[in-house]
């Protein structure tokens, strides 16, 4: 007899949406989360507002998770790490550690929603000096400041008059082995530019990019407003070096449309760091015996027509476990995996 419970590993947007889907269809979802709260990376890294609609992160996450809180069909286990797995579709035994105590779950299918981590700019091929200069920060550092509605230079606490974003840090780079585009950084940089301009209307903002990638509605919802309403300067050409120059930072790059090397002084630089598989994602791939792609993300089997199934029947990968993903991707794949997991279990029941 197939077990009809579904285990979801990871309580970010994708995991929450999967739990909503399972419970909404009347089945039991067991959601395990390593932290003591839900919300995933947007919560953990204190995102200020979501991309592209600039909705307050906590408010939006609150709405997202409301249906699974106090829901008898959703068991949430906080502070829990999955450590082992055996069995097959319809009959998995999952071992986990909960605050040092071993526990076990019996489930019919598993949805992995363990997400990504941000690229560490210390590994960058370019010389961005993140570990040397206070005023060089990352997108996530910037989110933390924006969530406190205070945007200042870390070196002296003063408001920046000129700052720039540098795109593709840790992405689209053969030398680093991260050849993929991280998909969201162009949008997030543009979104942050708008937020900064709202706080500091006189601040001059530049975005150095290779290609601006904001698809569909991101174009009209963030790119154009950033350019037209907030006068953000988009410059096609990358920076390769950031050095100290007096109390400023000097950014060296090429303005490719002008075809000359440029050196510009900035008060602050924000590195648009890309995505890599999180440690949790890599561990889950090992534990469940899932195929990984060359970048360490979990490989799905059906190409663009099946974005969540893995090489192990009954185990699904969602959100940023399979590659760079935005929140739309995360909730879409979370919901899709809920449906696929239940239909796989149900089809066992029918054929049995």
């Amino acid at each position, binding site marked *: 007899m197939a077990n009809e419970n579904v285990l979801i590993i990871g309580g970010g947007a994708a995991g929450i949406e999967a739990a909503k889907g399972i419970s909404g269809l009347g089945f039991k979802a067991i959601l395990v989360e390593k932290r003591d709260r839900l919300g995933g990376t947007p919560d953990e890294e204190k995102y200020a507002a979501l991309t592209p609609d600039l909705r307050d992160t906590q408010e939006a996450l609150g709405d997202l998770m409301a249906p699974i809180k106090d829901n008898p069909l959703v068991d949430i286990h906080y502070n829990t790490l999955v450590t082992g797995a055996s069995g097959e579709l319809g009959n998995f035994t999952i071992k986990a550690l909960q605050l040092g105590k071993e526990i076990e779950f019996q489930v019919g299918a598993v949805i992995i929603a363990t997400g990504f981590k941000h690229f560490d700019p210390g590994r960058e091929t370019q010389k961005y000096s993140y570990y040397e200069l206070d005023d060089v920060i990352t997108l996530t550092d910037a989110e933390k400041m924006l969530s406190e509605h205070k945007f200042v230079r*870390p070196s002296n606490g003063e408001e920046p008059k000129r700052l720039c974003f540098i795109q593709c840090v840790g992405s689209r780079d053969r030398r680093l082995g991260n050849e993929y585009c991280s998909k969201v950084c162009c949008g997030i940089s543009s979104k942050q530019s708008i937020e900064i301009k709202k706080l500091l209307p006189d601040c001059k903002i530049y975005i150095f990019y290779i290609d601006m990638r904001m698809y569909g509605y991101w174009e009209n919802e963030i790119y154009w407003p950033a350019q037209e309403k907030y006068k953000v300067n988009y410059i096609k050409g990358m920076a390769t070096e950031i050095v100290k120059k007096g109390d400023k930072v*000097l950014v060296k790059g090429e303005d490719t449309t002008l075809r000359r090397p440029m050196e510009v002084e900035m008060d602050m630089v924000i590195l648009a760091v890309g995505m890599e598989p999180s440690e949790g994602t890599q561990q889950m791939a090992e534990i469940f015996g899932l195929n990984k792609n060359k970048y360490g993300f979990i490989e799905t089997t059906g190409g663009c027509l099946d974005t969540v199934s893995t090489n192990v029947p009954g185990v699904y990968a969602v959100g940023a476990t399979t590659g760079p993903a935005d929140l739309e991707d995360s909730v879409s794949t979370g919901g899709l995996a809920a449906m696929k997991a239940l239909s796989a279990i149900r089809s066992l029941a029918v054929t049995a």
Partner: protein
Amino acid sequence: MIHLPVLKASDRLFKIDPEEAPTHDLRDELFQLEKEGELEVIRVPEPYMEVKTKYGRIKKIPVEKTWHHKSCGQCGHIPGYSTSIFWLNRAFGLDYYDPTDQTSCTAWNYYASATSNPEAQAAVAIRNFAAAHEVGYFPLIHCGTSFGHYKEVRHALVHQPELRRKVRDIMKRLGKKLVVPEEVVHYSEWVLAMRDRIAERQVIDMSHITATVHPACHYHKLIEEDAVYDSEIYGAQRSAIVTATLQALGINVADYSTWFDCCGFGFRHILVSRDFSRSFSVQRKIEVMREEANPDITVTHDTGCVTTLDQSQVVGKAHKKKVGLPVMADSQVAALAMGAHPYKVLQLHWHNTDNKPFLRKLGIDVDKTWAEFQAECDLIKAGKKEFMTWEDAEK
């Protein structure tokens, strides 16, 4: 106090993890090729010292049994450079070998004129490696370009079977084997690895000295993963080479905003288009160092860099540029710290920019030491001695 949710750079800690290296360890591939009978690997002799490279891998640096692959530009135009390296070896009583069965790497010409090809370049490299191996010593490369070029050659030999076959055939006809060193080691890495031992024997205080460092392009830009990095120095965001050595000697190393720029050497430019070399060297390096760091000296670790940075200042001075910064190699500074003679050993008379104020700041009697060197020259001129010997230089 500013309270921000963001860490200051000094609190950000970069952990280098060899597991995250984006490349294969070339040495594993070398040993695999050796197993397959494709080539022979020259092992680093024991005892060796360990340094860390860009991705946190360990690089072995031999202490002794080193075969000194000399640099044509150093030996030809700034001979105190290599003399200081030998002097350091002698001061520590180490077994080293100064060969005559050695050619230049010929890479200066290759990068200048392209009148060569990959087979010829690789064959020249392997001929020299084989010469070292035949006498039982391990190559220590003096020139930054030779070092970078040999790293490229080693990389190409591992990844290009056709090149390997061609070079093996050439070596066979020379009666030699295709041998490749386990590590390509630059002398400045040896100086860096020896820095604590050098500092223990330091007799000249340098704690009041400020220096700028120019890392040689071909040292850290060609096969950058094989350059020395240290998480204590610039957060492992650039090579620790030279900087770590100078800091061990108590010197204050000051940063400047064009540290990554080349010296202006340009290979063909320094010989036939020197307007570029002069302008670049003065405007992008020396003047920036003077303006931002006002150092007593600039220290580098390559033939071309010492030459270009030093010689280019003559015209800079004529144009009233902010020049006048002495240029030395790390081997010279290290030898000086241990009490080497500024003219008999460092041979500073071959350098161009006035280095006397620097020597005086170290408490060295410039007139007396120059007179001592002159006395040796007078004996040679008078035919009373054929050469100045190591004993003369060390007394």
